[in-house]
């Protein structure tokens, strides 16, 4: 009866003298994998035109119903095909970071980045609009 207890304690004590696995998170950060699925970015091309043309596939494929889009006509300096998303919202209260949106996108317009620090003090702020999501150049 004492045997298993001692066995457990031995593991505990050996780990006390080994280096820690964890890091002091807000001060130190771990490197994540480059293909980590974190916050979304709406890409723009070399000329600053939005890639997203609201085909609606990400919205349709999203298993958590986290994406909401409306489209509009756009001038050539904003889009090479004349159509952009007027509203593009991702609700991070719902998003499960499955990456299906990225997979479905025919134009590589939506990409999940390794950026994972999405926590917010208020729930409403987790609803990210196009302004937050659009890639800055």
């Amino acid at each position, binding site marked *: 009866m004492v045997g298993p207890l001692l066995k457990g304690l031995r593991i505990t004590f050996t780990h006390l003298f080994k280096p820690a696995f964890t890091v002091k998170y807000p001060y130190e950060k771990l490197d994540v994998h480059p293909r980590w699925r974190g916050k979304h970015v709406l890409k723009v091309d070399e000329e600053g035109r939005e890639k997203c*043309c*609201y085909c609606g596939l990400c919205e349709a494929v999203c298993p958590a119903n986290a994406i909401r889009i409306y*489209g*509009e006509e756009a001038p050539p300096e904003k889009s090479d095909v004349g159509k952009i998303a007027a509203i593009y919202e991702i609700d991070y209260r719902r998003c499960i970071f499955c990456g299906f949106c990225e997979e479905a996108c*025919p134009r590589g317009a939506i990409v999940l980045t390794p950026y994972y620090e999405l926590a917010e003090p208020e729930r409403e702020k987790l609803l990210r609009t196009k302004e937050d999501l659009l890639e800055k150049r």
Partner: protein
Amino acid sequence: MGMVKVTIDGITVEVPENATILQAAMKAGVDIPYFCYHPYLKPAGLCRMCLVEVEGMPKLAPACVTQVRDGMVVRTNTERVKKVREGIVEFQLLHHPLDCPICDQAGECYLQDITFRYGRATSRFVDEKELYPTKFYGPLIVHEQSRCILCKRCVRFCTEVLNGADWNVYWRAAHSLIGSYESDKVANYFTCNLVEVCPVGAITSRLYRYKTRIWKLEFTRSVCEHCEMGCSLDLGVRENQLFKIKHRMADPSPWICDKGYYAFDYVNHAERILYPLARQENKMVSVEVEDAVSSIADKLKNYGEGEVAFILSPSLCLEDAAAVSSMAKAVKGLVDYRVYGEDYLPVKGNVSDIEDVESAKAVLVVGGDVAVSHPVLALSILKAKNAGAKVGVLSAHDIFLGERVDVFSLLPAGSEEPLIKELLDGNVDAIPDLSDEERSCLKDMLSGELLLVAGVRASSALRAAIYSRSKEKGWKYLFLDRGCNAKGLYSAGAYSEGVGEILNRVKEGKVKALVVAGVDLFNTYPNGSLVKEALESAEFLVVMDLFFHDTAMYSDFFLPITSFAEDGGSVVDLFWRVRRRNPAMQPKGLSRPVRDWLALIGEAMGADVDSQGQVAETGWDPLQAKAELLEVKGNTVALVEHAFYRSARYASWCSRFSEVAESPCAYISEDDAKALGVSDGDKVLVSGKGGKFEFVAKVREGQPKGSIVIDAGFDRFPVTLLLNGSWVAPVELRKA
């Protein structure tokens, strides 16, 4: 008709002997893909997508144009057919831009579906695709030639149904292009059908362009509110916004008009009033529902018999009308719906269905532009013509139907009705400007079986004449009313002496409180100055509507009501059939149907408001009409008519739709134009009783001298000021 037995993929079906293989396959439940076949257009055999193997035929046969034979054996699931389908799809996609991500048709596109089911995964075409720029034909339709598969459905619609319109194929073979020869606008009232028949995204609606995706919309079946035809519509709603209207059920007609298809975006308009308003110190301020209801109830309670009047839009639903009638009874008030100054009530025609119109032997349209008031009926009349009927149009104003029929004359606006009366009495020579051929045709029509269609402008006296003459001769007759539910309002008893009488009594102070529901009287009643005086002298005015229009400017209370998309009411159509609407969306803000407001007010007053409407068994008897035929004399007589693209309900708030009618036009005769020295497109001034208005002159062939037709319905353009109770008035015409 004999029936024959056909076997398709082992399934034997019995079909009429003039059926095609495709129709037989539909009956057997065998899927044959097609692009160019349309159930209401003639088969064309253009796309070759429906090729099938027929036993005994060496080559594959196009199913849409091959007639069945008894004992025919058809196979659609063989290797050969599969290979051909793959080939056809590959050909169709040769120059297709494959821009489904931005195409509005994606999700309901035949080409997408058929490629997915029958096409190859890859194309072997390596050269550069031939692409064309996008073309906008007016504010309503967008044409993308690159996406076109040349099925010619749109062109066939224009030639077969519209009997010719400026829309055709030009160039040849692989270089064929679809489009309009002459203009960058498609100018007819049925352009939406081009969008509806297009199986791919080549012709799309500009209203819906890029806004949302079709699979996000939830469709609810409803009934159109713009005229009495009662076309069944499917309203596409997303997040309580109406985005698209589709016409999926051929009821009453497989076609639809631009009003029904495009004039709906007022439902989402930002200017819509969604909260009750009350006048406080000459300002309208938002108030609580309870406060508004109790204040209105307190006010209405104080009025005695005949001191309250209700004026309703002829487009309110039957239940609303019943509620208003019962409220009017409770307060012993007056009620009327004839806001266009009509002196007639709905007459039950002896035509029971649209098929009776389409199978008529001869049709004569008098007293109104049917294509504006009941557009789909005009298409049915054309269908009758194409089936061999003689069709005549005798009217003071006509744009669409007249130039497509056998007998057409533009009558002088002032003496339109006496001339038609003379014609009905048998004097064909009374009608001016007819060729001998037309005259003899008209004589034939009058001597045989005839369907007389009385337009919305025809007064009660003319209606009485038509009615009695038709009874005498055994003709069929059809009387048209304004608004989408005049028959329903008549059934609910929502009529008294006429709106003109009510307004006069308000002006004289006999009627003190007025409730106006769903209508801007300045736009509809043909005497703007009377409306103004009446509204100014009304002690208490409640307006129930969607928008804060000119009539609402005078109101003490404004109650927001629901649009047709939010309300499940019923309407009575031209053939006295009850059509029920389904609510497609939640009421916006605090808006609610008229009947609900009245129920609340009734409750606060202690009156019982009943909204159970019954459809009347019989119509009004026009022989009771006491009025004289309308005759207006003067050097220049003007007929005021709402332009088609301004005649829809709430057209001012339908942005793209009303843009088509750019500026108000005056149709003048060649003689008058010469005398004034104006030509097409010049400005003319029309002055009359209530003011001066500037119009763009349109010189029209056949327009009688001294008679003009001017457009109404434009924003901040109250031409009703020129009128004096009827839509025809003497005016002065000058060059601007």
